[in-house]
């Protein structure tokens, strides 16, 4: 299925860029737009949009990289689980190289722990069914795009009567993080490129406070190059017209009301809890934990996992980068001690981390 049938990138892209450049020229200050979502950071680099935008537009990366914001303590919990006898740790591939305090899941696997990379939470159910003599622990990391699928898998596990499946929940939600960023006022943000796929689930309403309380426009944007250009265009148009509203660019996938059924399943299984975000600290009601009725699935409880928070390595600026206060090249470790081969901070490990994106794609010719 093509993205914009009938209108090739070749025709609309130059027009949008021209408009964007025009709008940017009207402002005497640089315009600082935050792309909340790590997938947007990567798409902006890979498509070459970064190289085409006028210098008057600064793009900041935000905290929407679930791997980047997962505290070391939770990686360590997953590692502890993997080290238990007869445990199969099921994880998305994104987590394999993230540094814990002294190891990574990839290193643990190399030393013989049973760690399986899954593509879907339902794969964890299949593992549990196939290995009745083992315990399968699903390491659930993600935002609202992923949480309904985890919830659905939990209810399905119940229907299947699986008794050897546990969940290590390391899930977070986006709007509280945006609120925390704006409330601490450290990053100056003129507009938000809002995450397209999280919005498929939560819709438009949870972002309204950005416009109504803080007077900042936001556009829910898709991930194709043309989507991103259109999203930036819509943001700048609002600025030019002196408006601040939440608009939807990603019309083909996002309904204003989101996916109610998905939210209902999420609410059935999970309750909001306070959560720690790497770099942002504790944000109230920004995480998801199993409700009491499902707490028997809680791996942290069942295995009595300790929660030992380590700080970031000295010099590591992941926290500032995730808040859009600093750019990756400003980190003293960037490109020297911290590289994709030997990452120190999560922003460099994650394929959609800001530092990894800058390192891989952002070099100057």
């Amino acid at each position, binding site marked *: 299925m093509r993205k914009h049938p009938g209108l090739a990138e070749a025709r609309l892209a130059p027009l949008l860029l021209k408009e964007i450049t025009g709008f940017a020229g009207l402002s005497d200050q640089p315009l600082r737009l935050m792309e909340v979502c790590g997938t947007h950071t990567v798409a902006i*680099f890979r498509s*070459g949009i970064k190289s085409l935008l006028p210098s008057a537009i600064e793009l900041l990366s935000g905290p929407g990289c679930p791997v980047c914001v997962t505290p070391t303590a939770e990686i360590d919990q997953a590692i502890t689980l993997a080290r238990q006898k007869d445990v199969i740790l099921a994880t998305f591939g994104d987590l394999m190289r993230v540094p814990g305090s002294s190891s990574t899941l990839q290193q643990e696997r190399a030393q013989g722990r049973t760690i399986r*990379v899954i593509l879907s939470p339902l794969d964890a159910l299949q593992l549990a069914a196939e290995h009745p003599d083992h315990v399968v622990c699903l390491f659930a990391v993600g935002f609202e795009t992923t949480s309904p699928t985890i919830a659905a898998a939990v209810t399905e596990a119940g229907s299947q009567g699986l008794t050897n499946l546990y969940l290590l929940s390391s899930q977070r939600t986006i709007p509280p993080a945006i609120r925390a960023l704006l409330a601490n006022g450290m990053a100056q943000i003129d507009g938000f490129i809002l995450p397209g796929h999280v919005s498929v689930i939560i819709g438009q309403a949870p972002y309204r406070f950005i416009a109504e309380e803080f007077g900042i426009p936001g556009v829910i944007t898709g991930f194709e190059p043309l989507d991103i250009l259109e999203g930036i265009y819509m943001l700048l148009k609002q600025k030019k017209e002196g408006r601040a509203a939440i608009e939807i660019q990603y019309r083909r996938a996002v309904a204003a009301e989101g996916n109610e059924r998905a939210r209902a399943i999420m609410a059935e299984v999970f309750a909001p809890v306070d959560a720690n975000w790497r770099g942002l600290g504790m944000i109230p009601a920004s995480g998801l934990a199993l409700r009491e009725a499902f707490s028997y699935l809680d791996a942290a409880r069942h295995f009595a996992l300790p929660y030992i928070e380590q700080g970031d390595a000295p010099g590591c600026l992941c926290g500032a980068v995730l808040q859009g206060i600093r750019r990756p090249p400003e980190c003293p470790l960037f490109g020297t001690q911290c590289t994709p081969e030997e990452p120190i901070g999560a922003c460099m490990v994650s*394929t959609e981390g800001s530092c990894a994106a800058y390192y891989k794609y952002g070099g100057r*010719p």
Partner: protein
Amino acid sequence: MKERRISLAHGAGGKLSHDLVQELFLPYLGSAPLQALDDSAVIPFETGQLAFTTDAYVVKPLFFPGGDIGRLAVCGTVNDLAMAGAQPLGLSAAFILEEGLLIADLERVLASMQAAGKEAGVQVVAGDTKVVEHGAIEGLFITTAGIGKIPAGVAIGSARTLPGDAIIVSGPLGDHEIAVLLARGEFSLQGAVKSDCAPLNKLVATMLAASGTIHSLRDPTRGGMATVLWEIAHASGVGVVVEEEEIPIRGEVRAVCNLLGFDPYYLANEGRLIAFVPEGAAKTILQAMQQHPLGKGAKLIGRAVVDHPGKVLLHTTLGGHRMLEPLSGVQFPRIC
């Protein structure tokens, strides 16, 4: 053979070892030197330049659409030689067999090696077998070496690319790695992608016949196209610019990359080459490639430049650009 599976006795050097060689290896790989069953093959030596290479093959699963470990072993070794412009003179193959390997599987592998050898016009002239305990390896490993003759006047190497050279890829990228990934069934994806595994020595001969000069040749195996471009840029001290729109990738390969979050520019190929040729010869060479069965999908994808030596720039379909870095670590499937 009476036994259905390889046993440790097959590797012990006694009668069973002898029978294995006689009844299974020789019928498929039986070149004259192998038939002699001496400890070494003796090959007449001419003056000129020899290319020499070695490789190890550990692919899982052993069999996949478009090939198997045996075909891979022959083609991979022949291709290493071909990247120096050499035609293969002879290959060696050392087999490490797992105790319990089905003899029927071994036979399939050997038949495949025989067929691949015929395509390339080369034989296995020296061989060895060892058997290891069940569980020490999975199924079968093959280590090879190959020698080839480089035609007089041919000098191809990674450091020989000059600014202005045209960059040609011989066909769509990523087929091999995706075929093997699908065959492993790890992510429950189904699709009809076949490995591109093929011997490229005759394609290279066609290219040299069309226009005597090729500066650099590489087959983008592990690390893919991006890593090869970067290595050439480094070795030759040139910049490289490629056009995203021109790089051929099949729809199914792209779909798997989208689903798993892979970058197709880092996928392994086993029957493709990337050539760096003088600007003036590009059109002739491209046309000659497109007439050859293994070069039908050949495309001009970019050029070497004076600017940004050692770096690779991708012009995106949007009209912007970004850098292409060599592969770092292993690509894990991702959901974000």
